[in-house]
């Protein structure tokens, strides 16, 4: 039994059907990558898992319990956290306040101060920035804040949506290093990326999404070796 | 469906033209008020529905039209329709500089800024000694409801025709583009300031023309009667209820509203306001985008299936 299993998920925004049948699973402690073109439904899939988008059909099981249709609050409470696409920080709040909102759910609220200490210990670069408004940070710094904020709720599964978006290659590598460290600390990671080569280096297994559907799954190596994937996502012929 | 619309419209117009011959004073009165509010809603729909600038102050132009007409009729003894026309032109002339300033605001700021602007216009107009300030202004009685009705009907039909034209014209496309995203529209070559001010001017001309008729209809005007925020809000609600930025929204919304309102106050004078407000809230929750888009979506779905 996987820690998180998503089966045949469907979702729509008004008339626009974004997901037609997305399935993936993640085991405790592993990194899984979900790749696909923009508009393939990756972000919608993550938002549906978090309850931010209400799924139309399908099943989401976390730790043996159905969570589809539940509110985001309950889902975070159970141990899932999202690093959203574009980071979605609270731009006019300080770094520290951003982190504290990450510890909003009841399970960790009482330990917010302790969690804050742990996050600063993991990301010492945030320490001197704690009083800065999040909106004034560089892209890379913002991404670290977003990750730190998600870690505040002590998740068992971390969903990451395009953490490399808008970052210079050097910063991207650093962020991926952070992802690896988090994973080593025992947190399972679902990594949605366009930076396919690096994502597949990091992940144990991967899924390919096309037009709102899971069309392929396998080990990262197998996916990386797939000719179709190579052609479409890695620009190799 | 579309074919039936033209003869239907012609029939409706003929019926409206003949109405004063057949109807009693009350029915004409009700018809006048209905046509007046629908015309006001059409005026508002241009700047707020098509251009997306939500105004809470178009009534200022109605008041300006009414006062200008009254002053011209009383002091210069013009035929009232000529005076009302002058009132409309004055409203338009006032709208252009005002629009130039106010249309720099957006969203709720424009909405409330226009509310403040309307209050200012009211205070300043009634500060002119000739208007008699709070004691009001009497007009010579006698032109009667029929003339006022025809004047208002003509403006209402004109406003509908104008809206039909806007909806199909390049100007209308430009307005809708700037409503959706003003900066993008500008970088696609839309002269946004000019388009907005034109829309604002038209949205002022219509109430400006209507105000004169209203002054004649009342024969006595005072600030609260013609700078009536209630009349303003009523026409806004009609347009929203019918469907913002649609050709037929103000008409449908206006018909529904006046019927509901008329049916309610006759039956429940004491709790009329409460029922009206409650109904509005319920309608809004049930049909958030207005009646016309809801019907259109329904029709499209049915014909698509």
């Amino acid at each position, binding site marked *: 039994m996987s820690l998180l299993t998503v089966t045949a998920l469907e979702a729509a925004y008004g008339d626009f059907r974004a997901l037609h049948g997305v399935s993936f699973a993640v085991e405790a402690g592993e990194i899984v990558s979900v790749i696909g073109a923009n508009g393939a439904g990756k972000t919608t899939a993550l938002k549906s898992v978090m309850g931010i988008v209400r799924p139309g059909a399908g099943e989401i099981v976390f730790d043996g319990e159905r969570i589809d249709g539940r509110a985001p609050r309950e889902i975070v409470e159970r141990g899932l956290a999202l690093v959203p696409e574009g980071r*979605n920080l*609270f731009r006019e709040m300080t770094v520290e306040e951003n982190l504290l909102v990450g510890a909003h759910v009841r399970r960790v609220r009482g330990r917010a101060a302790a969690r804050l200490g742990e996050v600063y210990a993991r990301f010492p670069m945030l320490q001197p920035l704690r009083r800065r408004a999040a909106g004034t940070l560089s892209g890379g710094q913002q991404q670290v804040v977003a990750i730190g904020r998600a870690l505040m709720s002590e998740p068992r599964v971390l969903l990451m949506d395009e953490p490399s978006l808008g970052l210079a290659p050097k910063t991207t590598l650093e962020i991926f290093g952070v992802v690896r460290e988090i994973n080593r600390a025992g947190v399972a990671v679902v990594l949605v990326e366009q930076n396919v080569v690096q994502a597949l280096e990091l992940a144990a297994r991967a899924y390919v999404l096309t037009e709102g559907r899971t069309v392929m799954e396998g080990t990262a190596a197998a996916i990386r070796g797939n000719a179709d994937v190579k052609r479409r996502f890695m620009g190799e012929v | 469906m579309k074919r039936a619309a033209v003869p239907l419209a012609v029939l409706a117009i003929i019926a409206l033209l003949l109405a004063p011959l057949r109807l009693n004073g009350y029915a004409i009165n009700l018809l006048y008020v209905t046509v007046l509010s629908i015309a006001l809603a059409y005026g508002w729909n241009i700047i707020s529905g098509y251009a997306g600038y939500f105004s809470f102050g178009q009534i200022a132009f109605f008041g300006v039209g009414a006062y200008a007409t009254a002053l011209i009729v009383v002091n210069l003894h013009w035929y009232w329709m000529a005076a009302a026309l002058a009132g409309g032109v004055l409203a338009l002339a006032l709208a252009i500089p005002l629009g130039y300033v106010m249309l720099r605001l957006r969203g709720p700021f424009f*909405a*409330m800024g226009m509310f403040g602007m309307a*209050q200012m216009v009211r205070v300043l107009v009634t500060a002119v000694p000739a208007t008699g300030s709070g004691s009001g202004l009497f007009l010579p009685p006698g032109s009667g409801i029929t003339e006022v009705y025809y004047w208002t009907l003509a403006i209402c039909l004109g406003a509908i025709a104008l809206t039909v034209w806007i909806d199909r014209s390049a100007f209308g496309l430009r307005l809708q583009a700037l409503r959706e995203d003003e900066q993008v529209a500008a970088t696609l070559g839309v002269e946004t300031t000019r388009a907005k001010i034109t829309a604002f001017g038209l949205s002022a001309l219509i109430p400006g023309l209507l105000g004169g008729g209203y002054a004649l209809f009342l024969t006595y005007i005072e600030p609260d009667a013609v700078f009536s925020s209630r009349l303003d809000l009523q026409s806004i*609600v009609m347009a929203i209820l019918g469907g913002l930025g649609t050709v037929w929204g103000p008409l449908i919304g206006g018909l529904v509203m006046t019927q509901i309102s008329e049916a309610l106050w006759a039956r429940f004078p004491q709790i009329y306001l*409460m029922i009206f407000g409650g109904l509005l*809230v319920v309608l809004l929750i049930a049909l958030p985008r207005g009646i016309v888009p809801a019907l259109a979506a329904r029709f499209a779905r049915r014909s698509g299936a």
Partner: protein
Amino acid sequence: MILLQLAINGVLLGGVLALSALGFNIVFGVMRVVNLAHGDFVVLAAVFAAFGFAQFGVNPLLLLPLTIVAGFAAGALIHHVLLRRLPGEVASAEASSLTLTFGLSYFLTGAGLAAFGGRFVSVPYLTGAFRVGEVSVPQARLLAFVVAVVLSLGFALLLRSTALGRAIRATSQNLDGALACGVDVDRVRTLAFAIGTAVATAAGTLMSFLYNLNAQQGVLFTVNAFAVVVIGGLGNYTGAVIGALILGLTESFASYFMGATLAEAAPYLLFILVLLFAPGGLRGRRAA
């Protein structure tokens, strides 16, 4: 001496305006909803307090907890049942929340008229003034001023240094981000609307010492509130107090030197000038 008195009058009037605007600012700041029914809550509370006093001789300050609880409950209910259901699309959300609160305003006015009738009422309480030399300081206005400052600072403090406050700000700054953190945004907004309404009704109770009101006067408070909030800066709770003081002083001096009827235009002029030249409010940050 007259100038000093006018200044004091203006400052105290500013306190009254600040108090009556605070609830509106909370709702606008957190939810970006222009609550056209704001003034109706103020007025209903005032009329209720005045009737309580006239009928049963209850000290309106004793009614305060009751009106706060009632306002809180009413606000929570209205948000939960109505506002929450509005569509989320940005373009139409603005229009529909305006229309909805407009309908609500009519409903409340109608309900107030049905319950209390159209008579103007007021509570003869704290009607005197403290005298400092030649200058007088009206007691009820002073109280309103103090309460306005305390409540504004209190709310600013709540926002700044409590978990709920952070959740409220997070929700207003980035909805998706707040959702991702497990903030129950529905609850936060319901709370914000409820707090806004409770503050409005609390203010209304104090307004009953100052003004003669009936159920239909709500629109005056709504308009004042918008002016105060725009001048002071949206969602800026201390800025709103300053905006209110500026408005109060303007009104006081303008109606002395310009004549009261013409002076009615002064606050509107100020309000439009601020909108045009300092869109973030006089103390607000410039909008990016």
